[in-house]
Each structure stands twice: as structure tokens, then as C-alpha cells.
């Protein structure tokens, strides 16, 4: 009988311990979800310090960009527990805040002395607040980013090309300062044979499925004074979204696509743009600043061969916003651990190391450092871009708004359907229906 009692006790203890073990291991572990790209690797390196300091093991779930929104939004909508921390797109803030997917961080920031005034204002507004610009914080600015350009500096420097360009255009071959110059330069290079290889003018975003073509086209639209509303906050889009300036911007983007992109370039986003440039096919290309450290290090096209420039002006100076904030997922089982990571990440020293590893810190301790501008060949451009960024809708219905724009823009630019005015009029109609459904109109 004693033997049976002992055996039962032993079994009960073993069961209790084994049941308790998962929660013990969970407490010492955090999963951070983000897109799979160059800065994610830098974050893995950076997070080793957090593990060393706290003993919390960091796990990462990195999803390729084309599937990032699908995968992570499905996870949030289904109440999944995959992510404790999420570096999500700025456009997700509205929906994630209103649906209770993110933890509101105001009290935590106050308690820990984390000040949003320590971060660049544009970044705070874009990556942390909902409603936009209000002091309601749902994330800590994690990764500043904007859409910008890079070019083959070595080709631009060739005397024979410079002479030819001067002869053809009557001006010196320099980095394009306006959209008109950008198109002119792209046309000049397109089809030219350089180093025995046919090259093309520019590699730009044309991707249909996720957000690619919208992120590319808004570079041209914002630069031409595109606005989402006539009166901010009123959702009165007619006359703003389809203004003559917006039509001009859209037509310029299509002109650039038609004249100067490499063959088969009908569905291209970040990866394809990088491929076109790295393989020596494109004289110029657009992409996010996040890729610039990797491009600069590239053995074939980096170093002295590459130069960078901010989005050229149209009627105004503007750039399309990228970048993200880091949020605590409300569904996490490890709230304390997740908040501890945010607290650690907000420290100026950590932010400095983040920049040095290739992440785009937007902490003032980094940006206002006198040595910042010279720390990387694209650092000065990053500062300029971050001061002129504009973002897409951050509304809870952003996904429908984005899909409508993807369709209208791809139909017009790539499939040659209708005119620019018709495309933008159609977009106004689509967006109006969305805001009516939301009760905002």
C-alpha cells in the first residue's frame, strides 16, 4: 500500500511540474514579429544584449514583406498568441488600437519616464499615435524609414556619358532634383549600352498584391502636392485626391514606368528593385532607406559605385513614409517581459547601437548627434526625408482603402486602363463608399 501511495505521489508531483514548466519557460521567452528584411537581422544582433541583461530569450518570427500583412493581421484577427511584441506597419495603428490588439502605452511610458519628445516628431506621429497626432501612444517608434532613390554614381561620373547627356539635354548630368529631371535622366540612360551591357533608366515599384505600386506612386503624388482631404479630418476627398496636381503626378509615374523600366517589370517591389540594380540593369532605383546599408556594402554595385538621393521635388518636397513602431500585443502571456523589452529598447545607448548595426533609430540622441550626418553616406538624406514624409491613411479601414488604390493604380499604370483622372476619380468613389460604410461620411 505504501508503495502505491509513493508511486501516486511521485506521479502527481511529476504531472504538476510538467504542467508548470511551460509557463516557466514562457516567462523567460519573448517572440518578436516583424518583416523579413535587412534591419530584422540587425535587430537579432541588438536583442542579444537584452537577453544578456535580463536572461529573457528572444525568439523572432520574420515574415517576407509580400505576406507580412496577410500573415500578421490574420494572427491578430484570430486572437493568436504567436507574437508578444510586434513591429507592425504604421497603417495598422488605427485598426489595432480600436480593435484592442495593441496595448496602450501611455501609463507605462509615464511610469518608466519614457518621453515621446525624445523621438523625432514626425516618427512619433506616424509610428506611435492613434488618432494620428494625438498623445495616445500604441507603439514606441522603432524604425524610421522613407522611400528614396539610389543611382549608379560610377556611370554618372563617366566623362563620355556626361558629355553625351549635356549634348542631349543642355544641362549637366547631376542627381535629379525634380521629377522632370528624374524622367529626363531615366530616358537618357534607358536602352544605353554601358560596360557592354544594355541598361535601363529606373527600377520602380509596380507590385499589385500588397502595397508596392501605392508606395511607389505616392512618391510622385506627394511631390506634386497630393492631399487626401480638402479639409483635414473631414474626409472630403473630391478635389484633393483627384486634383490636377495629383493627375500630373500620376501621369509622371506612368511615364517613368512606360519609358524606362526593365522588361518584365510589371509586378515589382523591394526585392525586384534591388535585383534590377544589383544586377547592373538599372541606372536609378527607388527603395526604402532600410536597404541602403546593405546596398552600400554590396561588392558589385556598392561603395564608390552607388549614390543616394531623396525623392525629387515636384511642386513640393515630399517623401513616402515607411517605417514602423514596436507594440506590445494585448494577447501576450508575457506582458511584463514585453514591456521590459520596450523599456530597454527606448534607452539612448540602445538606440545608438541600433543605428550602428543598420537599424534606423529615430531617437533624438541619435539624430541630433553632430556626427550623425557623416556616419553613413545616406544619413543626411535620411534626415531630410524624415522631415518631409507623408503617410497613407491609418484608418481602421486602411486595408480596404489600400486595396482600392492598388487596383486603380495598377489598372492605370501597368494595364493601360483609362486615364489618370479616371483612375483618381474612381479612387475617390471607392474611398467614399468605405468611409460611408464606416459612418464617417
Amino acid at each position, binding site marked *: 500500500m505504501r508503495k502505491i501511495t509513493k508511486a501516486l505521489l511521485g506521479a502527481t508531483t511529476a504531472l504538476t511540474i510538467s504542467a508548470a514548466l511551460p509557463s516557466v519557460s514562457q516567462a523567460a521567452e519573448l517572440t518578436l514579429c516583424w518583416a523579413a528584411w535587412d534591419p530584422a537581422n540587425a535587430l537579432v544582433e541588438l536583442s542579444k544584449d537584452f537577453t544578456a541583461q535580463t536572461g529573457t530569450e528572444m525568439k523572432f518570427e520574420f515574415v517576407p514583406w509580400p505576406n507580412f500583412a496577410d500573415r500578421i493581421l*490574420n494572427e491578430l484577427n484570430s486572437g493568436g498568441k504567436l507574437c508578444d511584441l510586434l513591429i507592425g506597419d504604421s497603417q495598422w495603428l488605427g485598426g489595432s488600437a480600436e480593435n484592442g490588439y495593441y496595448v496602450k502605452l501611455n501609463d507605462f511610458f509615464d511610469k518608466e519616464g519614457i518621453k515621446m519628445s525624445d523621438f523625432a516628431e514626425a516618427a512619433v506621429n506616424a509610428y506611435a499615435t492613434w488618432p494620428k497626432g494625438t498623445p495616445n501612444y500604441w507603439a514606441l517608434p522603432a524604425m524610421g524609414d522613407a522611400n528614396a532613390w539610389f543611382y549608379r554614381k560610377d556611370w554618372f561620373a563617366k566623362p563620355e556619358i556626361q558629355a553625351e547627356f549635356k549634348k542631349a539635354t543642355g544641362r549637366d548630368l547631376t542627381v535629379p532634383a525634380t521629377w522632370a529631371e528624374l524622367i529626363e535622366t531615366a530616358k537618357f540612360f534607358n536602352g544605353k549600352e554601358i560596360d557592354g551591357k544594355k541598361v535601363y533608366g529606373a527600377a520602380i515599384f509596380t507590385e499589385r498584391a500588397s502595397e508596392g505600386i501605392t508606395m511607389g506612386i505616392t512618391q510622385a503624388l506627394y511631390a506634386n502636392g497630393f492631399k487626401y482631404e480638402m479639409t483635414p479630418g473631414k474626409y472630403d476627398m473630391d478635389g484633393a485626391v483627384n486634383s490636377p496636381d495629383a493627375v500630373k503626378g500620376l501621369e509622371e509615374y506612368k511615364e517613368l514606368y512606360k519609358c524606362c523600366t526593365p522588361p518584365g517589370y510589371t509586378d515589382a517591389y523591394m526585392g525586384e528593385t534591388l535585383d534590377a540594380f544589383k544586377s547592373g540593369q538599372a541606372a536609378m532605383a527607388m527603395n526604402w532607406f532600410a536597404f541602403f546599408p546593405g546596398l552600400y556594402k554590396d561588392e558589385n554595385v556598392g561603395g564608390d559605385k552607388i549614390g543616394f538621393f531623396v525623392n525629387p521635388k515636384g511642386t513640393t518636397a515630399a517623401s513616402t513614409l515607411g517605417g514602423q513602431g514596436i507594440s506590445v500585443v494585448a494577447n501576450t502571456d508575457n506582458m511584463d517581459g514585453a514591456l521590459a523589452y520596450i523599456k530597454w529598447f527606448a534607452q539612448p545607448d540602445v538606440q545608438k547601437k541600433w543605428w550602428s548595426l543598420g537599424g534606423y533609430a529615430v531617437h533624438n540622441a541619435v539624430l541630433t548627434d553632430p556626427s550623425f550626418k557623416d556616419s553613413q553616406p545616406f544619413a543626411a538624406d535620411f534626415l531630410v526625408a524624415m522631415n518631409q514624409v507623408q503617410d497613407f491613411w491609418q484608418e481602421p479601414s486602411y486595408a480596404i482603402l489600400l486595396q482600392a488604390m492598388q487596383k486603380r493604380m495598377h489598372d492605370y499604370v501597368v494595364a493601360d486602363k483609362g486615364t489618370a483622372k479616371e483612375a483618381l476619380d474612381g479612387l475617390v468613389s471607392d474611398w467614399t463608399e468605405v468611409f460611408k460604410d464606416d459612418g464617417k461620411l
Partner: protein
Amino acid sequence: MTARFRLSGRAVRPDAPASRFLVTPVTDTDTSLMDKAAAKAVRATPAPLAFRVRGLSDRSIAWLFITPTIALLLAINIFPLIWAVYLSFTNFRANRPNAEINGVGLTNYQRVLNDPDIWQAMQTTAHFVFWTILLQMLIGFALAYLIDRKFRGHAFWTTVILIPMMLSPAVVGNFWRFLYQPQIGLFNYIYSFFTGVPPSSFEMLGSVALSPWAIIIVDTWMWTPYVMLICLAGLRSIPDYIYEAAEVDRASAWRQFWSITVPMALPFIMLAVLFRAIENFKMFDMVVLLTGGGPGSTTEVASITLKREAFESWRTGRASAFAIILFVAVFGLANIYVKALNKVKQR
């Protein structure tokens, strides 16, 4: 020769071997393998179980076996269908768990049916289904007819022809995406070799005019073997003596083809059409991998529109209405077609 067994009905000891009290051979001539196997199975049935089952009728036992299947069917198919019908009359959005769900009557159906983009997607789907079926039937039947001649090496060539069908659509999609690449793709080079047109001067996947045909070519390449197999089964089901009788009647090969081969293989051909039509009506993966529905919305078939509405725009109510409309359309058409198929079979 047929071995029959009956249950004895006598009271038994729990430890007694099952064979001693459960089974009494009616005949001792149970020599076939099947009979021996059946007898062995009966002997192996544990006595308590045999007792419990004995109290149930055949109908009850049948229900016992099919209940799990019916439960699964209800849970996985029927309940979601009813739920989707319910959602189609609401403004529900799967990404707004905190929002109030309101009934919107027939608004979702009205919007779907009045949406020119959805009609465009339906036209694209119809174009894709029509041409793929036509090409697959013609080529598939022709291949089956050739293979049925049983020439030397026909088994080898049958296997070779079947290879595309064995591949995953994901592999096929990526594979053809490379083949169609205007700068390095083999397809463009082969076309260029025969026509002299520069390979990078046309884009199979990026051109509004060519992209629908690029997808039709890939689907035809992949699924013609499947049609061929079904047609081959049809051709091999035709008894030789019918052809021999036709030969005796001096019927020409042409006459034999149209009076014997086609009518007798027709039920199989119609079945192949049904399978391929249903499959291609909901075609998704290959189109996504090849063109993603582009350029613009040129190759956006109905399933892609539905996916975008449901899981990218998250308008669940509206997507449900579209799904129900598609379901009713496919179900209705398939029913009409199956009736026609039955008539052909009864001839």
C-alpha cells in the same frame, strides 16, 4: 462453395474461444481464400464485443459507423455554409471583433451584383474555364486516342505525359514564371527562334493581351494528362467486338470513330469536362503565382477577387454574399450538367 456462418445463441463462458460458440459452419466446403479470411475474422472477434453488437440492428450499426462522418461533415461543411449565408446579410468584418454586427438585408448581394469589377472577374473566369476545357479536351482526347493504339513504348510515353499532372501547382507556377521571363525565359527564346521576334520584346505575363493566354497555356500543359487518362479509360471500356462487327459491316475508320468511339467515350469525356470545369472555376494558386491577377486586373479570376475581399479588405459580409452567389452558380450549373450526363449514359 459459399461459406455461411450463423451465431449460435448459446450461453457462453467468458474465457471460451470465440469460435466455439459464435460460429457454426453451415457448410464444410469453405475453401476460398475470402471465406477463410472471413471465418478467421469472426473467430478473432472478442466474445464481449460480439455480445454487445448482437443486440443492435443492422440499421443501428450502420448509423453507428456513419455518425462520425456526418458529424464531421456538419461541422466542416454544412455549419460554415449556413454561417456564411447568415454573414452575407450582415456588415460583419473579421478584423473588427469589437464592432457591432448589424443586419444589412440584401445590400451585400446588391453591391456584389452591381459591381463592374466583379462582373469583370466573372468574365475573366469564364474565358479561362472555356478555353482551358476546350484545349484540354481536344489535346487530351487526341493523346488518349494515340496512346490507345498501343504502339511500341506507349507505356513509357504515358508516364512522361503524366509528369506535369504530378507536380504541385506552386512548383508549376514558379517554374513557368521563369520560363516566361522576357529576358532569360526559355519560352520567349523558343518563340524568338522560330519567329525571329526579339525575346525581350514581348511579355507573356506582363501584357494585357497575352497574360490570359499565358495562364491558359500553363493550365493546359498541367492538366491535359488528367483529361487524357479519363478519355483513355473511356476508350478502353469500348469492347473490341463492336469494332469487329463494324469491320464486318465494312464501316470506314471515320464512321467507326464518330459512330462508336465518340458516343461510347462521351460519358467519360463529359465527366472530365465536369471535373475540370469545377476545378478551374475555383482556380487560385496557379494564377496567383503566375500573375497575381495582373497586369491590373486582367487575369483576376473570381477566386482571387473573393480572397481579396475576404482576407485583404476584410469585408466578410460582402465576401460571404459573393461566395454564396458563386456557390449557387456552380451548384446549379453542375446539377444541370450532371442530369445531361446521366441522359447520355442512359442512351
